């Protein structure tokens, strides 16, 4: 990364392409959050690469004045893995959606997380297929009526946080499009994280799935439903903190704060090596309904794939010396014919 801190104006990060999402789409807010964040992230823009797959969110790279690949459906984590491991000096960001990352690209997502490739994955979850005009997605709630499920979806939705934690992810966080401060804070944490970061961003699709996250954004309900996970702080939420999270027998539960001893209230620790508590927190909600945790679930250190691959190359060069073609083609033994 560049040693001299680089700062830009937001407009420096904007490409000359017209943004073509539907008016009112949550993607606009996220784009602004990312551009604002990157203007001050301290990395020169030629070292930033955005990689996406297919879907509404996947148009994101076209709007960033950085390097970018708009690849094919579901494969962005794999393309980004190739980018990252080929040039560890780059800051590599994947933008994906719930269909792209969890359905067609599920395999690539879990393996990028498992390998701890040094890439940051932003998954915009709108719980619907937008670009194909409104079919249920792997995060749509059971019973969801869409064009492809006129009688209601009969499928159990995935919980992206649980999936990422189960896939050995070292950084797992959730934000919501409307909360720019929360998003900026998570992006900062993700940028500083060594390895894969998985960030789910709840994103409103006002055309095909409007108000899916209303319980977390509506003034009337959001205080009661947002469980803000803050490292080192007691996990209380609701009006005047009257609700709290406790861990009993390893399972996260929501209780009335007044019913428990203060010492029992869960103090969030993003660096806990054992993923069980983070997983349990992810089970407090199954979708944005009722009390739902937001913030960083988990941030732990592990060697990154990107670094380890290059360590092996460096070691090989140290032990054997820089490869020589003439030696290589003679390495199986030769004989002379005169």
């Amino acid at each position, binding site marked *: 990364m560049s040693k001299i801190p680089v700062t830009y104006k937001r407009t420096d990060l904007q490409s000359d392409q017209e943004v073509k999402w539907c008016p009112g789409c949550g993607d606009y807010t996220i784009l602004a959050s990312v551009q604002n964040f990157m203007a001050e992230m301290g990395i020169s823009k*030629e070292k930033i690469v955005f990689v996406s797959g297919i879907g509404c969110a996947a148009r994101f790279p076209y709007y960033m004045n950085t390097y970018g690949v708009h690849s094919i459906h579901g494969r962005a984590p794999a393309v980004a893995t*190739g980018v990252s491991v*080929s*040039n560890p000096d*780059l800051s590599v960001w994947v933008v994906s959606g719930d269909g792209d990352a969890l359905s067609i690209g599920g395999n690539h997502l879990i393996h990028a997380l498992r390998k701890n490739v040094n890439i940051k994955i932003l998954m915009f979850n709108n719980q619907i297929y937008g670009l194909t005009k409104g079919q249920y997605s792997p995060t749509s709630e059971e019973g969801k009526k869409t064009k492809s499920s006129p009688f209601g979806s009969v499928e159990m939705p995935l919980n992206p946080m649980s999936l990422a934690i189960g896939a050995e992810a070292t950084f797992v966080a959730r934000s919501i499009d409307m909360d720019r401060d929360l998003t900026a804070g998570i992006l900062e944490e993700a940028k500083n994280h060594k390895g894969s970061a998985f960030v789910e961003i709840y994103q409103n699709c006002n055309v095909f799935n409007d108000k899916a996250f209303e319980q977390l954004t509506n003034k009337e309900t959001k205080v009661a439903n947002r469980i803000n996970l803050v490292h080192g702080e007691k996990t209380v939420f609701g009006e005047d903190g009257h609700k709290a999270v406790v861990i009993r027998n390893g399972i996260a539960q929501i209780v009335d704060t007044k019913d428990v001893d203060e010492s029992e209230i869960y103090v969030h620790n993003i660096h806990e090596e054992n993923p069980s508590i983070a997983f349990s927190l992810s089970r407090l909600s199954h979708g944005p309904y009722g009390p739902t945790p937001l913030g960083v679930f988990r941030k732990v250190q592990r060697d990154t794939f990107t670094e380890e691959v290059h360590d092996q*190359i460096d070691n090989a060069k140290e032990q054997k010396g*820089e490869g020589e073609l003439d030696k*290589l083609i003679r390495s199986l033994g030769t004989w002379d014919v005169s």
Partner: protein
Amino acid sequence: MSTENKTVESIPAITIRFAGDSGDGMQLVGTRFTDTSAVFGNDLATLPAFPAEIRAPQGTIAGVSSFQVQIADFDILTPGDNPDVLVAMNPAALKAHLHDLAPNGMLILNEDAFEEKNITKAGYKVDPRESGELDGYRVFQVPMEKLTKEALEEFDLPGRAVLRSKNMVALGLISWTFNRPLEDTENWINNKFSKLPEIAKANIKALKTGYNFGITVEAFHHTYVVEKAALPAGEYTNINGNIGLSWGLIAAAKKANLDLFYGSYPITPASDILHELSKHKNFNVITFQAEDEIAAAAASVGASFTGKLAVTGTSGPGLALKSETISLALSAELPLVIVNVQRGGPSTGLPTKPEQSDLMFALYGRHGESPLPVVAAKSPSHAFYAAYEASRIALKYMTPVILLSDNYVATGSEPWNLPNTEELNELETNIITKLNTEDGFLPFLRNVDTFARPWALPGTPGLEYRVGGLEKEEGTGNVSYDAANHQYMTDMRAWKVSNIANDIDKLEIHGDETADTLVLGWGSTYGGITQAVNRLNEKGVKVASAHFVHLNPFPDNTLEVISKFKQVIIPELNTGQLLKLVREAFLVDARGINKVSGEPFTAQELTDKIEAIINE
């Protein structure tokens, strides 16, 4: 060792086939005999054949693994047709291979394996040694297991480990019979088991036991020698196609001043490329064993975007999975080499058998109008040059290139007269570090000669650009749905590929140029076709051959070559794929010789079929 008690008959060539259970170590014995013969100075060619199962039930036909080698004192091109010698380690190996043994061929049997149980398992109703079916062959029964047990009595090894060395007894005996010294193999054993000296000693003892059996038993006192071949002067190594291909990629990266990235998912018979490249990290090679075939290709596209010589390798079924990703590379105009080591298909098909049935798929197996260059390796050593050539085209023209090999090229081996690496051409790239217009960077402003676009690499200030699978506007590379632009870009991508015809080696004619008949081939049939044409020419039959390395585009003199002949014959290990391409492109009434039995053509088979067509 005593050599007094033997006669030595000099012969120009011999084909030996070792056959046994897949756990009997036949590939090892074959390889050792081959390497010793190579060092001795013979020309040679090998054909390993093994079951797709790692350990099929012991003693059954399904579990038989074999290795054939032809050694000669002249320049040969194939691993031989019918073996002159068959070593059969059990009844199943005998049953599976006897029908190939040449009349009066030498048949060496491990007699200890001919128990009733094994005889029945192999599907024999009566002991084949007593039924008369071995009449017409020279049969030598050797108690290999008994010899091994006796020889290794002095070692403290478990019974199963002891019997594992019986292949060394067989190798020792064959080494005696064909006058091959043991030193090379002894060194190899000591090297291989340097940390297990007891095992090394036991194997060397077994090897010598087999050799000494030949000295002792009168039946083996008539021995043979194949003298050195008069090969062109040079330094040689014995190489198989997968290794040749791997080294070709490393060489190409070096000569392009790039690092190599190889993304792959394990698949037979391409995995050895991944194994080989992963050994050579000191060449800055990154090998990426992906979670699946698609990821292997996709990561390679990512690597290409950053400026690597990116290669993804696979075999038939994997190529199908990579298809969409190859289209992305084609549309984004990024260099990428896709290696397809063909095997029998469709579906899982015959994973360990050669076939040339992915030619049409390589040319046309993508959605949309998506032409790309296709290059094919014609022999194990040629795989090096084919990989180099595929890389050259990919980098120079900013395009994905499919490199076809097959199981026959990949696992077969031959001596390779090593090139002077300094004489390998430097490879051009389209890397750009500065703006290409006064007004800014145009990522799709093409080179006027090659039509390649510039390759701007992340990390280069001022050239930040976005690229993807949506149609791009010529010049700016911005997303464009404009009708005329799509027509133009489609035409341009096709033209860019067809233009390569001027930049590749011309099609050469081999054999009798005055003949009326041309035998046209591609890929691994090279050895068989060339040998057949040589034999026919020696007999006075007028015939010539030409062999494609480039399948798309064809060399620009192809029509000229074809027009010189009245008749064109195209042998292929498929049902007629090059045949269709040639008929369509050159409007010639070509005839096919086609086979999809999972076996390569033998030179004799092609000789007979070509002659029959000529004589019609």
